[in-house]
């Protein structure tokens, strides 16, 4: 059996990759894709912990996270489409009107 630590390390690296994507990508859709990477990294960690403790709670949490991700993508992409119709852009640098 592969030790839990290896899965946790993989999850941490994938989360950091997602964070780099969120910070560097400049299209709103690409930022969303990077957020999906981070969600998946956390899911790997949750499933690894579920196996380590022999408790199905972690797997149930992953199921709920997946549902939340689906809802988030539906709403987020709808917002992106609504903004694109008004502004003809999804570049996050141009969408900074709420900046203080």
């Amino acid at each position, binding site marked *: *059996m*592969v*030790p839990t630590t*290896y*899965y*946790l*390390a*993989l999850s*941490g*690296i*994938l*989360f*950091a*990759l997602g*964070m*780099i*994507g969120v*910070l*560097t*990508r*400049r*299209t709103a*859709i*690409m930022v969303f*894709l990077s957020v*999906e*990477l981070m969600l*998946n990294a956390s*899911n*790997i960690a949750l*499933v*690894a912990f579920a*196996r*380590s*403790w*022999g*408790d*199905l709670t972690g*797997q*149930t949490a*992953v199921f*709920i996270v*997946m*549902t*939340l*991700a*689906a*809802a988030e993508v*539906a*709403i987020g*992409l*709808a917002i992106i*489409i*609504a*903004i*694109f*119709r*008004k502004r003809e852009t*999804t570049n996050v640098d141009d969408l900074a*009107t709420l900046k203080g």
Partner: protein
Amino acid sequence: MMLAFIILGALTLVGGVITISARNAVHAALGLVGTLLSVGGLFASMNASFLAATQVIVYAGAIMVLFLFVIMLLNANQPVTGRDPVPFVRELAGIGGTLLAGAFVVLAFTYEDPAPLATSAAALRGGTAGAVGETLLTRFLLPFEAVSVLLLVAIVGAVALVQRPVPQPDGVPDTEPAGLLAPDTGLVFESVTQEAVLKERGRA
């Protein structure tokens, strides 16, 4: 088992790197599909067969199709060109990400299993739909129902956000759907259609 982990883990990371570095958004989305499928394989290797199936069906199936639809609909597959307004953002993000990954790896290797893996993995009953469903519908019934309400809200919200304003026949100015911003300031809520109506009134 170790070999499967190495292959799936490498595929996951390669897909992740493609996702954050590909210049074409469609390529990035396809890289993420690779990552999601490999994560599904990792789930299967951790006694989570139901989640592995859900990962492939919901994530790699439904969510990614939605993403690809929107990328192609908005014609957003071209990269953003021009100078980045934030100086050194790539270098700083690279350094920060490396530090974060290092911290996670160090933390991961301090973790110790509370029981031998073979016994605790057996308690998961393979993570089948029956086992997960039993936990979901007994101990976590309230979160489960809350999530179903959330999904309903998401469906209604997505439809409400993207619907176009219905033209009003009686000269009443069209109202904007909620959440839209005017092009210049982001604060003015009068719409183009309202201006058109006023112009028409002046002409009459």
